[in-house]
């Protein structure tokens, strides 16, 4: 692509701004709302009349604390465990897919793809019944298992694409250079595989972290309910007050880790997502 003319550049700027406003306006609205006082909620203005921490106090130390903090704990714990399991399993699967020739390799890949495009909503009801029957309803494993069905397929695909690009000959080169089999793997392969595994972990974590459908359907109490589902159960300070402010504050808090991680690792994430498409 050659250099853009001034006109083109102006157009791109306009389009970029439009897209940014369209994408970020809701976020900004939630952010602003989270600092409003309850009395300010229906004022019809975008920015709060008076910036206040009331909502944050309420969910972190106030009377909504129990609801929110337990949900936050659930979310973090469940997402981390689901991510860890998914990444470990996907690493093994992807290693086999990338390096070995075995029957059923295509089958595994197509199954993974089929699982990942299967609509979540259509299995949530049967799962609800099964989980109640086997006692997994409203437990951490009850959410971790369905989350694996979301995170495993994409992890397998991205990691397999990553591993295929690793020059495995390096392992042999290292052995000739005087390394033991284990040294060769650790010094020549792990440094190359690590970024791929890390990126995959990030992507898997976001998927689990952002889930709402499983979270709301397969939990009933604070035992396992994750934040996105818990938001729906917030109540205002009194029965007559709307919980909008607290919900906004909670939403901001759960968005922060995602935003920070994406900002820190955006290059790796883009590389990971486009790994299969672009041959290095």
């Amino acid at each position, binding site marked *: 692509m050659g250099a853009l003319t001034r006109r083109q550049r102006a157009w791109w700027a306009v389009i970029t701004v439009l897209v940014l406003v369209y994408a970020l306006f809701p976020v900004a609205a939630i952010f602003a709302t989270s600092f409003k006082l309850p009395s300010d909620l229906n004022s019809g203005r975008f920015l709060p009349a008076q910036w206040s921490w009331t909502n944050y106090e309420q969910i972190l130390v106030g009377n909504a604390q129990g609801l929110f903090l337990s949900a936050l704990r659930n979310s973090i714990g469940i997402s981390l465990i689901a991510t860890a399991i998914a990444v470990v399993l996907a690493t093994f699967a992807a290693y086999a897919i990338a390096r070995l020739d075995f029957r059923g390799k295509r089958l595994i890949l197509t199954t993974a793809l089929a699982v990942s495009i299967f609509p979540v909503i259509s299995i949530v009801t049967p799962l609800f019944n099964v989980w109640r029957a086997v006692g997994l309803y409203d437990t951490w494993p009850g959410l971790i298992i369905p989350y694996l069905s979301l995170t495993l397929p994409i992890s397998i695909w991205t990691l397999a694409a990553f591993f295929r690009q690793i*020059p495995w*000959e*390096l392992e*042999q*080169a*290292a*052995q*000739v*250079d*005087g*390394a*033991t089999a284990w*040294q060769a793997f650790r*010094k*020549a392969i792990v*440094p*190359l595989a690590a970024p791929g595994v890390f990126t995959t972990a990030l992507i898997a974590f976001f998927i689990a972290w952002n889930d709402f459908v499983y979270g709301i359907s397969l939990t009933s109490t604070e035992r396992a309910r994750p934040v996105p589902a818990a938001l729906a159960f917030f109540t205002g300070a009194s029965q007559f007050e709307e919980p909008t402010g607290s919900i906004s504050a909670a939403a901001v808090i759960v968005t922060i880790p995602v935003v920070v991680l994406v900002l820190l690792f955006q290059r790796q994430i883009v590389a990971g997502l486009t790994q299969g498409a672009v041959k290095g």
Partner: protein
Amino acid sequence: MASIVLRDVVKEYGDGFLAVKGVSLEIADGEFVILVGPSGCGKSTILRMIVGLEDITSGDLEIDGTRVNDKAPRDRNLAMVFQNYALYPHLTVFENIAFPMRLAKGRFTDEEIRERVTRAAERLELTEHLERKPGNLSGGQRQRVAMGRAIVREADAFLFDEPLSNLDAKLRGQMRTEIARLQRRLGTTTVYVTHDQTEAMTLGDRVAVLRRGELQQVASPRALYEQPTNLFVAGFIGSPPMNFLPGRVEGDVLHLPVADVPLDERLRAAVGDRSLVIVGIRPEHVEDATLLDDARADAGVRFETDVDVTEWLGAELYAYIPFETAPEVASKLEELDRDLDGEGMRSQVVVALDAESRVRDGDRAELWFDPARLLVFDPESGVNLTRDDEAAARIDERNEELRRASLKRAQERDRADGEASPAQERAAS
């Protein structure tokens, strides 16, 4: 420094494919041996067995008199340069070259490592790239880093697997001479796999020609060129390749599709009682009769023929002469063509004439060759019937003498350089 001996080495891959069928080869200390052959003939397999990356199915591999079949690669102390260089992308050039020394824990101090890497980098002109990552280097620079990694730890032997095949023609020429110079200076035993004619002929002290996992001939480049043992070697060595023509024997005359050759004593002995043979003549041994002085012209065979296409290349002129092949040898020649990765081209004679020649497309030309240059092959077995074992042995002997002499010269020169700069000498020891 080490000698390498292969004794009846066989490799059968897991899928039952017999890639190497009993190869025996003795490589002397300090020798530069080339493994050459068409794609899939087992060159890389042999190299990988020597270095220990591939198990040896049967037979013995000895390095310096010790059987090493069961030793891990790291215990063989050999250095290998891979076709795609196999550099560690996450390490800088410096660390790539230092890698083997870092693995040999305790053998080298940091100071020593730095000295050796710096010296190797100087030798390979990599000094200003030491802190860069291999991904940002050009093909030739990467190649040199791979070489640096190989030479830095004073391995017993160097193994190269088509190290120049990813470079463009010009760079390949430069690196070729660089490798030759380096090997002479270091005097390290070297096994070099290639399927490039020029590399095979110019680099090696000896060339081993392989075909479908079997050794065809091991000899000096010159002996391969002048005294090939069979059709395959004759067709493989030389560019453009040797022409093969059906030759019908009638009384005292050998009828070729393009000319009739009187049978002299040498040819008579070679032909024996066969009535049909395959005759080989190198393109560069045919000349334009009009450019020769009479004395020479009378000593050979003149013939007139129709030239189909000509190519003028500045230094010489290629002329293509189509001919009808004999059905009895057609299948043998086709098989040979397949073995040589040929394209099943129609049967034609290629001749390389003097660039002064006036022959052009479609001309009827008068050409000439010396029958003493003809090679005669058995049409069934493909054996070279005109091969002179004594002459071949003489060529190899002479070649060996020259090799020793040039090795000695290179090392004397190296020593002289060393005395000129004592600092460098200290770094070396």
